[in-house]
């Protein structure tokens, strides 16, 4: 006991900046939770959900080097689990008016947190069935199988009328209004991911990304390790989907079109494949950016009646951005670096050096 206390003290001494940062962050969320209006609150909540899902995607795609495109599908599973199990029993008859809810589900209502975790676990089960054929093989079969899966899951949810209410979707899901649910979960998942990446498992993930054959020769079990990463990713994504359902208060199959996945792809590519802090930053940049650029879809932007501004332009800009990053800035914002205090100090020094270097050179030119 004394030892652990000592180690906590030592830890604090070493990482006091991080501790201070965390406290400031928590206070910041608390303050924001009290003061922001409902529009901003929704947007901030969405940012946190994007952080969760993008981080899960980066764990599989960036750190383990396996190309999964099933985020929309796993989110759908999490979202529908939360929807089915948390909708109040008394309002179910009104929602399922075309076909009543299946009797084995009709009277089950679970607390939000239980449904959320159940959603994550359901994603894990599905991920296992997709992963077991695909992850045994080398090559990109996982990409096509997961993309196919997220299309299929929509078809399934549209057709299972008595469980998911088909194309009508499920409305009046009890919503979460405070920022704590999303930011609390996001923080927990960030911490879990950091610990995971710095553990033996994390090193095994990265070794597979760098060179599968070498990793196998070093004794890393390829299938087991890839599967671990894929299942953890699916769990986090399912949780993200559950929060998404509780944020919007309604789910229907159209929300989980596979193009949703491309948002997360843009985020991890922008932030840097294999950087946790990069993913977090990019999640905020992309989510807020998509909101800020909404005017591109409005026909009367700037008071001018330019025919360029019409629905669809915003997504053209974002897909173009994805191409530009991949072709010209392949490392994204952070590459595989992390935003640590050392990294900031180093950047600060190099910028300072550059500035002073410029100064001397211009002075030299003057003489």
């Amino acid at each position: 006991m004394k030892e652990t206390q000592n180690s906590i003290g030592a830890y604090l001494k070493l990482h006091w900046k991080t501790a201070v940062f965390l406290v400031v962050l928590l206070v910041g969320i608390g303050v924001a939770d009290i003061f922001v209006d409902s529009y901003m609150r929704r947007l901030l909540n969405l940012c946190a959900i994007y952080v969760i899902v993008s981080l899960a995607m980066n764990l599989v795609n960036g750190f383990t080097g396996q190309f999964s495109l099933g985020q929309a599908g796993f989110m759908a599973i999490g979202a529908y689990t939360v929807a089915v199990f948390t909708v109040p029993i008394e309002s179910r008859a009104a929602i399922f008016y075309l076909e009543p809810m299946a009797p084995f589900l009709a009277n089950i209502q679970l607390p939000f947190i239980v449904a959320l975790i159940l959603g994550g676990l359901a994603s894990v089960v599905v991920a296992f069935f997709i992963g077991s054929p695909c992850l045994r093989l080398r090559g990109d079969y996982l990409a096509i199988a997961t993309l196919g899966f997220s299309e299929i899951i929509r078809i399934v949810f549209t057709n299972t009328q008595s469980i998911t209410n088909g194309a009508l979707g499920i409305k009046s899901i009890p919503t979460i209004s405070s920022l704590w649910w999303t930011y609390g979960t996001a923080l927990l998942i960030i911490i879990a991911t950091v610990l995971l990446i710095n553990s033996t498992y994390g090193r095994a993930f990265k070794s597979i990304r760098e060179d599968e054959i070498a990793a196998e020769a070093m004794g890393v079990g390829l299938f087991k390790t890839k599967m671990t990463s894929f299942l953890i990713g699916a769990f986090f994504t399912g949780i993200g989907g559950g929060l998404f359902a509780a944020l919007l208060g309604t789910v229907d199959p159209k929300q989980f079109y596979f193009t949703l996945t491309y948002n997360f792809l843009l985020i991890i590519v922008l932030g840097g494949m294999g950087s946790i802090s990069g993913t977090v930053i990019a999640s905020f940049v992309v989510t807020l950016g998509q909101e800020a650029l909404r005017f591109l879809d409005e026909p009367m932007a700037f008071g001018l009646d330019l025919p360029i501004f019409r629905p669809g332009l915003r997504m053209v800009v974002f897909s173009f951005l994805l191409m530009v990053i991949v072709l010209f800035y392949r490392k994204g914002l952070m590459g595989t670096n992390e935003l640590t205090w050392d990294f900031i100090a180093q950047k600060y020094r190099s910028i300072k050096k550059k500035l002073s270097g410029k100064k001397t050179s211009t002075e030299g030119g003057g003489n």
Partner: protein
Amino acid sequence: MVVGMTMETFLQQLINGLSVGSLYALIAIGYTMVYGILRLINFAHGDIFMMAAYFTYFGIAVFFLPWYVTFIITIGLTMLLGVTIERVAYRPLRDAPKTSLLISAIGVSFLLENVATYLFSGKPQAFPEFPLMTTPFFIGGLSFQPVSIVIPIVAFILMSALLFIINKTKIGMAMRAVAVDYDTAKLMGIKINGVISSTFAIGSALAAVGAILWCMKYPSVLPLMGVVPGLKCFIAAVIGGIGNVKGAVLGGLILGFSEVLMVAFFPALTGYRDAIAFVILIIILLFLPNGLLGKKQVEKV
């Protein structure tokens, strides 16, 4: 289940399956050729198919060109599009990590979908009908749409031509050489860039013909129409053995027949029609990862 299905309707379904399967085969060839040479899933291929459908639509319904002129222009423009995509989005990344190439392919696909939505609106446009192709005719109590017969014939002619190109011409030999061993082929003086460009040109041309025939059968065009056919045709290529042209044809036909026959035998499963490709993919990957005609690949250091 089979009760209620007469011999006539069964034959009709077989013809239908043959025409759907031939369409899949035409698109699957583009996937399999690119994968054979670059080891890349060309995610944009389904969207090249979609753009070809729009080119045809604009030629016939907007500019009122004669159909044969439209078809030639469509095939030319689609080939140009395919080659341009390779030149701009894939070639600069040839020495980059594979993930970057894959992301670039997805990016192109996403960009084409969004540009099409922006330019042509997300609403489906009605494709002009070809009465010559859609008016049913009767043989001994069976009714056929001419298009269902024309599709397999056109597909068969094109595939024979393709096999001739691959097996008998110089560029075909170069393609096979690059597919077997990229680096050695380069050392032997094969102009890799030219070979890759012609691969994309041929794949896109087949996708263009596929799109024209597709629109005669299903007369509507929309920006996301290439996604599901694209996904299915890649699966068809995997079924036949990725990298193998004959395999892609076989896979396309198997997929077409299983879809049509499943819906015919089990009408209750109609809603799940698009799911069958996925189920077949999982089964193939579990038991026959190299596909039906593929060779076993050994990873070398």
